[in-house]
């Protein structure tokens, strides 16, 4: 019974069916299937397969995003049911947001989805977030990586301010900084002392793996 439900959870992620994923997650809890098994044997292999299909070019972004949504729908039900000490394995913890003065959301959210689909635990703090909000979220989530997005030539400067704020808060050494956004370049990332720059959401995953010293 548990194997069948775990298989269904995996398939719901691959097929991109958030509503099914939610139903199967609830059924699993009703039938006392271990939520950690549901995650590690169902959702994780499911999203990995979605990622592979994407890499092969069979899936495009819409399939990837709905797969990640299905995973999230199930996780929202399963994670609260984990007993203390149980924790799902993640590649790393990421805090993600768009910098102060900038309301552009789509690119940043896409990076979040790509990272989630590749095993990261992502906390998205939204748009127009000042350095204090980033620092607070990094501390609260014990983030390994912070990702700051800026789409405007005028708001790029906030990425530099964030790095300065991390230094003043004394947490610069404990968190890796990734920056991105249309006007941002590798050179700019180096100039302001960021650890990584990704020119698109797909390469962001490689950079994040590299920053975690995890195998790509």
């Amino acid at each position, binding site marked *: 019974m548990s194997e069948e439900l775990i298989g269904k959870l995996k398939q719901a992620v691959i097929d991109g069916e958030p509503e099914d994923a939610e139903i199967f997650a609830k059924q699993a809890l009703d039938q006392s299937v271990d939520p950690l098994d549901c995650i590690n044997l169902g959702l994780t292999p499911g999203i990995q397969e979605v990622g592979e299909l994407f890499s092969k070019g069979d899936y495009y972004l*819409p399939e990837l995003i709905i797969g990640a949504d299905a995973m999230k729908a199930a996780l929202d039900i399963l994670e609260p049911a984990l007993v203390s000490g149980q924790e799902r394995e993640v590649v790393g913890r990421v805090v993600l947001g768009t910098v102060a003065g900038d309301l*552009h959301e*789509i690119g940043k959210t*896409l990076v979040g989805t790509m990272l989630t689909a590749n095993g990261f635990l992502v906390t998205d703090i939204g748009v127009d977030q000042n350095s204090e909000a980033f620092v607070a979220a990094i501390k609260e989530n014990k983030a390994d990586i912070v990702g700051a997005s800026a789409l405007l030539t005028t708001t790029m400067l906030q990425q530099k301010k964030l790095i300065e704020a991390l230094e003043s808060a004394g947490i610069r050494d404990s968190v890796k900084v990734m920056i991105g956004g249309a006007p941002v*370049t590798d*050179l700019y990332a180096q100039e302001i002392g960021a650890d990584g720059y990704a020119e698109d959401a797909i390469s962001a995953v490689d950079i994040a793996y590299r920053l975690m010293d995890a195998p790509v």
Partner: protein
Amino acid sequence: MRKSHHSETIANLVHESSVDILTKVGFCVPVDKVLARLASAGFLVDLESQMVRITPDLLDSALKTLPKDVKIYNREGNSLAHFGIDACFMGAGTPVNVFDLNSGEHRSSTRQDVCQLVAIQDALPQIDIVRPTVTATDQGEYSDLVEITELLRNTTKPIVHRTLSPDRVDAAAEMLFSVVGGEKAFHAKPHFATLYCPISPGYFTPENVNCMLKWAEYGVPITLLSMAMGGASAPVTLLGELIVINTDILAWIVVLQNLYPKTSLIYGSVSAVLDMKTGLLPLGAPERGMINSGAAIMANYYGIHSMCGGLSTDAKELDAQAGFEKTNTAIPLLQEGASIIYGVGAVDAGSAISYQQMIFDNEIIAGIRRMWDGISVHDIKEEIELIKALTPRGNFLSAPHTLQNYRRHWYPEIISRDTYDTWKEKGETIDQICSRKAQEIVANHQPPPLPASVEAEIERIMRRFLPDFSYEG
């Protein structure tokens, strides 16, 4: 202007959809002071959500006061003759990267690039309207004002730019007015239009709202420039995306005409469709030309001018891809009667400017313009007589008619029509020819200078923001 057989169907469908959205859901105006003004002007305002809806009356009065047949002028007061008749071409902009003219290095753009790229646009005959095309990233916070000074000093052609925040619209307007002899002279013959982009769907930032209203107070033409991304900030279908584009623009046509009746407005779109394999926004895609041709359709429907993103490419160098994409993203805009085609000089999905591409774009435009003439219908008496006289096996090369008419056809300046041997002997690639031409213009082209008194006035205005401002940068 020419129209496709679909254009009327599309225009009616899209307009009705926009009116439905604007009367039922509306759009967000995130500035409380403006919300209050809109409420007293009769808009349906929800102060808490900052959402604004229009009424049929407001729409009617806006479409009545919206100026038609607007002309644009150069710094010397001459109107751009073919504006509104045939498509005009405008510099792209404004990314923060440039391919260095001499080394080809991909680097941050500077004030010197703005100065040189403006002078090149001034010199190139196919470019009608000039933009800074890149950001002067070495000029810090007031780069927008510095860029305007370089536009004023390095070209006499009509110019288009914007300010980054409302606090400097006064200064920008003063400078723009000073070069033509005051505000009255500007209003009679505007040589400048500004542009602002919404965040689709249904939102302009507070800075952009305040900038637009400030420019409207000065009676300066404003371009409402949608940057919708199909599949991300708008529906993925072209018709669905066009509804978002139109709704965002129509909303502000209604706002600006009701608050500042008779403000000249340009219907703009530099929209595109998201690439679902990468999440990037390809600007060389066929869909780029297709979606922005929709903006031309809608602008013609409202009877105003359009500014449409095209002549675009994702190529990083002057290659086959660049030639293919540049041409193919311009053609649909001509087909639907776009007033301004916006993209000269841009490469790499608009994220950089290439001097060489700018030179080659001039060549592409010349070729496209010739093609767009089509087969002209004229009195053919002379041709008939000639054919009769020379049939059979006659030679038209020596006929006076040939001498009188051959120059109607296009003769390229860069593209090679040489034989293999001649081409080999010349040994210069298109890229090298374009580099050489750009370098020659930079070295030799001298746009007519501003009077010393005007330069002094601009300097005085600029020093309110930048105490060290000088023309030597």
